C-alpha cells in the first residue's frame, strides 16, 4: 500500500522555502513551547465565569509558587481556578500528548497516513466498554474513576489485543491484513455499541456525551492516576524513535538493519495502545488530534521520528488545550466537535500549501 515512502527518511523536503531545513525543527519547537505556555495561561484565565486576570495570576503565584500575595479574591475564584480549571487544562494537555504521540506511532507502525490512535479498534472497544458500563447495575468508584472509565480502558486494550492476535501482527505479515482486521473487529464492536445504545434508554445521552469527548469532568485525582500511565507510555515510545524510523523502511529492510521487528512492533503497539486507553478513559473519544497533529508536524520537519515524536507531543498538548478552551467558552460543547471544526480546515489549508512533497 505504501511502499512509495520507503527510503525517504532523511530526504530533504523540496518545499518550505521559509527556513533552511536544519533550523525548522528548532523554530517549530519554540513555536510549540510558546503555544503551550499561552494555552496554559489562557486556559486558566478564561472560562464561562469571569475571574479578573490579575486575580488569576496572583492566585496562581500564591498557591503554586508560595509567593506572599495578599488575598484579594473571593473564595469562589480560588475554587474555580485551582480545583476546576487547572486540572482541566493539564488533563487536556496530557490527553493531547497521548493522542498525538499514539497517532504518530500508529501512522509509522502501519505506514498508513490515515492511521490514528483509534485505527485498530481502540475507539470501538472503549466506546462499547463505556456503554456497557451504563447498563450494568454496578457502581464502582476507584481513585476518581468510575466503572465507565475502567471498562473503556479495558475495552480499548482488549480490542487491540484481539486485532493483534487475529492479524498475526507478531509475524512478518502484510500490514494490509492488520488494517483490515482492525476494521472488521471495529465494525463488530460498533454494532455492539449501536445495540447497547438502542437498549440503553435513558442513558443514551450519557453514552453520546462520552462518544464526543469532554474535559468537563476532569479532576486532580483523575489526572494524578492517568498521568503516570501516559508518561510511561510516552517515554517508551520516545525511546524507540530509532526503531520507528527503521520500520518506516519496511519490515525486511528493518530486519536487515538488525532490528527485532516483532518485538519492536509489539512494544510500540502496546505503548501506543496503553496511552490511547488512558486518554479515552480520562476524556472520552476525542477525534482528529491523533490524526492531524502528527501530519502537521511531518509537513514541516519531515518523517524523522526523532523530531516527529517529541514535536507531535508538544503540539498535541497545545492544540487540545486550545480546543478545550474554545469548547467551554460558549457554555460547554463537546471538545471532539471543536477539534474537528478547527482542525479540518487548517489541515486542508496546509495540505494544499505543502502538497508538492509530502510523504510519511
Amino acid at each position: 500500500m505504501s511502499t512509495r515512502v520507503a527510503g525517504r527518511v532523511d530526504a530533504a523536503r523540496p518545499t518550505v522555502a521559509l527556513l533552511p531545513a536544519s533550523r525548522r525543527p528548532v523554530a517549530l519547537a519554540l513555536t510549540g513551547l510558546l503555544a503551550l505556555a499561552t494555552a496554559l495561561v489562557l486556559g486558566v484565565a478564561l472560562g464561562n465565569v469571569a475571574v479578573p486576570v490579575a486575580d488569576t495570576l496572583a492566585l496562581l503565584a500564591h498557591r503554586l509558587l508560595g509567593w506572599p500575595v495578599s488575598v484579594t479574591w473571593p473564595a469562589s475564584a480560588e475554587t474555580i481556578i485551582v480545583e476546576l480549571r487547572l486540572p482541566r487544562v493539564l488533563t487536556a494537555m496530557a490527553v493531547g500528548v497521548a493522542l498525538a504521540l499514539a497517532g504518530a506511532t500508529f501512522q509509522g507502525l502501519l505506514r498508513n497516513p490515515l492511521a490514528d490512535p483509534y485505527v485498530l479498534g481502540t475507539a470501538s472497544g472503549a466506546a462499547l466498554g463505556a456503554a456497557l458500563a451504563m447498563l450494568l447495575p454496578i457502581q464502582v468508584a476507584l481513585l476518581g474513576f468510575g466503572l465507565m472509565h475502567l471498562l473503556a480502558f479495558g475495552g480499548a486494550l482488549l480490542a487491540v489485543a484481539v486485532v493483534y492476535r487475529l492479524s498475526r501482527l507478531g509475524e512478518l505479515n502484510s500490514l494490509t491484513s492488520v488494517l483490515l482486521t482492525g476494521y472488521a473487529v471495529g465494525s463488530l464492536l460498533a454494532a455492539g455499541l449501536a445495540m447497547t445504545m438502542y437498549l440503553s434508554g435513558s442513558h443514551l445521552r450519557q453514552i453520546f456525551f462520552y462518544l464526543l469527548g469532554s474535559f468537563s469532568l476532569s479532576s486532580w485525582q483523575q489526572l494524578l492516576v492517568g498521568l503516570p500511565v501516559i508518561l510511561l507510555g510516552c517515554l517508551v515510545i520516545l525511546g524507540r524513535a530509532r526503531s520507528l524510523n527503521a520500520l518506516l523502511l519496511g519490515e525486511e529492510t528493518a530486519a536487515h538493519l538488525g532490528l527485532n521487528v516483532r518485538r519492536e512492533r509489539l512494544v510500540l503497539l502496546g505503548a501506543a495502545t496503553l496511552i490511547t486507553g488512558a486518554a479515552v478513559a480520562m476524556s472520552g473519544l476525542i477525534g482528529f488530534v491523533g490524526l492531524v497533529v502528527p501530519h502537521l508536524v511531518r509537513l514541516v520537519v519531515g518523517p524523522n521520528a526523532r523530531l516527529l515524536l517529541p514535536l507531535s507531543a508538544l503540539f498535541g498538548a497545545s492544540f487540545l488545550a486550545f480546543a478545550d478552551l474554545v469548547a467551554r467558552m460558549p457554555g460547554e460543547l463537546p471538545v471532539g466537535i471543536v477539534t474537528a471544526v478547527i482542525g479540518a480546515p487548517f489541515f486542508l489549508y496546509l495540505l494544499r500549501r505543502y502538497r508538492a512533497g509530502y510523504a510519511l
Partner: protein
Amino acid sequence: MVVLDFLREKGKGTMDSLSQAPRPLAGRGLSFARLGLLLALAGLFGCQPASPAAPTPAATVPPTPTASPAPTATVPPTETAAPASPTLIPEAAWPRTLVDDEGTTIELAEPPQRVISLSPANTEIVFALGAGDRLVGGTDFDDYPPEAAALPDVATFTGVLHEAVAGLEPDLVLAAGNNFTPADDIEYMRDFGITVLVVYAETVDEVLADIELIGHALGEDEAAAEMVSEMEGRIGAVEAATAAIGERPRVLYQIGSVPEIYAPADDSFLADMVGLAGGEPITTGSPTAFSISVEQLVAQDPEVIVLGDAAYGVCPAEVAARPGWSGMTAVRDGAIRPVSDIIVTRPGPRLAEGLAALALAIHPEADIEPPADLLALCAEGRAVR
C-alpha cells in the same frame, strides 16, 4: 427515568410569556381564525406546543358545527371571565368539542370508554379522576397507582407502538406535548382517525388546567374540579408556610449529574416549582439549556442543593466530595437534601404533594404537613419525610 422527566422538561419555558398569569380553562378557547394559523404552524413545527393564551375570553366551548340538541350546551361567554370552574360546563353536554394544549380542536361524541394514556402523568390523572377502569393502554413507565403498571404498554422510550394502539380500538388517546409523545406519532395516529388529546403544562397552574381538561374530556368534570380545588388548597398552604419564614435561599435543584450537572432552565416548570416552594432557583441562564457548568455553580453559590436524582443513587456524601464543590454554602452547611423527583416533576395529581416535599427540602423548619408515603432516599442523608 431521570432523562424521561428531563426530556419532558426540555424546551419548557420557551414560551415564558404564557406562564406569567394563571391560565384559566376558558383561556384555552381559541378563535377559529387563530386556530387555522396555529394548525398550519403545528404542521410545520410539530414539536412546538402552540398554545398561546387567547387575549380575550373567548367562548369556553366553541359552537359545534352540528346543531346541538340541548340549548343549554352553549356556555354564555360572559361567565368565563372568572378562573375556570368546570361547574360552568353542563354535564350533559355531549357531543363535546375541546381544544387541546397544542391548539388542536377535537370532538367527542360521547364519554370515551376506551382510553389510552401515553404519559405517566396522564395515567395518574385518569386514575385519580376515578376513570382508571376506562384505561385500556398505557406506557412502559407507568408506575403509579400500582394497578397502572398492569395496563398493556403501547408506548416505550423510543416511541408509540402503532399496531398495539390500533388493536386496542381507543376512542380517546391522551398524549403528552413537547415531544414527550413524538410529534410524528401524534400525527400518524390522527391520520388513522384516532382522537388524540395533547396535554402539555409549562407551569403549575397549567397542570391544574390540564387536569380539568382531561376531566372534561372524560365527562368527570366534578371530580376534576374537586381535585383541583384540593390541590390549590395544598399549594396555598405551602406558599403561606414558606412565606412565613421570609427567607428565599438560592436553590440548586439538581435534575441529574451524569455526565454533566443538569439544573432547571430559565422560566422552566422546575424553576416555577422552586419559586413556589420558597426558593430562589439557580437556573442555567438559557431558556433551553439544562446543563450548567461547575464554574457557574461555584460563582452562584447555592445555599440549598436539592437532589432530584436521589432516587437514582445520587446522595449528599457523593455531592459534597465532588471536586470544587466543597466551598459552596450548601455543602458547608450540609444543606444537601434528596427528594423524590417523580412527584416533584410529574405534572399530575400528586404535584401539590411534590411541592410540599420540595418546600420541606428547601425549608426543613417550615410548618408543612409532610407528604404521605414518600420513598426513603439516601439512608445516610436527611431524607425528606
